[in-house]
């Protein structure tokens, strides 16, 4: 599998993602700076990392979504290449229009940084095939703006099409219908607020995040 991790100014989980990808797929990803206008040839996966790109100026993810590289990411997503956005990466994907809705300030106003329980709602995606539907896993979150918002019609469509992939199994940030992660209609773009890359080996306190990367490695070769 050939993967790239996009690095924005203020990304801080880019190396965590790179370590997870290299450990689990056996190949180090290409790190791509956000000013690039083209992505490397033949990518199977593009990962957008967590962090506080551009200091969350204007809105979380708003500036990064207009970075030169994002036009290439949008085009690659349109070609069916896998795109994974974690935390700030999820915010960038919504701001770029690759995923519906928006991530707003946490309802409790506090930055939330702890392990949370998640329910895997859909195990039929290339990102979640190694989980069982209905399984509860624990994965860390670390965000201030993770409160998912979309209008009722969009939420109904997401639910009806099985596009709510991860749901909080506890109250975390006020997200509409407890949404923690969604995929696009084609199923090749996943955005989620929790950080699977932070929980890939026992030394980190658990391995519940590992199977996201194992599933991608199996699906993408």
């Amino acid at each position: 599998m050939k993967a790239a991790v996009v690095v924005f100014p203020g990304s801080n989980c880019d190396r965590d993602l790179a370590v997870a990808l290299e450990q689990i797929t056996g190949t180090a990803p290409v790190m791509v700076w956000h000013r690039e206008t083209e992505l490397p040839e033949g990518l199977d996966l593009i990962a957008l990392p967590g962090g506080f790109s551009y200091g969350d100026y204007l809105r979380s993810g708003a500036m990064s979504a207009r970075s030169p590289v994002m036009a290439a990411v949008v085009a690659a997503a349109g070609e069916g290449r896998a795109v994974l956005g974690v935390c700030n990466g999820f915010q960038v994907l919504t701001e770029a229009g690759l995923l519906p809705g928006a991530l707003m300030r946490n309802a409790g106003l506090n930055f939330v940084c702890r392990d949370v329980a998640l329910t895997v709602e859909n195990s039929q995606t290339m990102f979640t095939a190694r989980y069982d539907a209905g399984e509860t896993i624990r994965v860390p979150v670390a965000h201030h703006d993770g409160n998912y918002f979309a209008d009722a019609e969009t939420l109904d469509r997401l639910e009806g099409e099985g596009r709510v992939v991860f749901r909080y199994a506890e109250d975390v940030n006020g997200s509409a219908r407890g949404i923690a992660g969604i995929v696009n209609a084609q199923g090749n773009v996943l955005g989620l607020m929790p950080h699977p890359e932070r929980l890939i080996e026992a030394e980190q306190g658990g391995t519940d995040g590992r199977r996201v990367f194992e599933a991608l490695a199996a699906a993408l070769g």
Partner: protein
Amino acid sequence: MKARVTITLKPGVLDPQGRAIQNALGGLGFAGVAGVRQGKVIELDLADGTSEAEVDDMAKRLLANTVIENYRIELL
């Protein structure tokens, strides 16, 4: 010329920051603040002759997120 773009959350979108401001005003002894909605104001210094349509395009493409926000443009 200048333009001012005022960005507000759409009605129905929860505004936890507005709620916190409301609570703080109550704490300062201001009675009767029934609600607070906060937003942002962006002032643009523009080349003379910039059209309102162009500012509207700026607002749509970057300044506001129309999933959650409304905006109002004033040319000054």
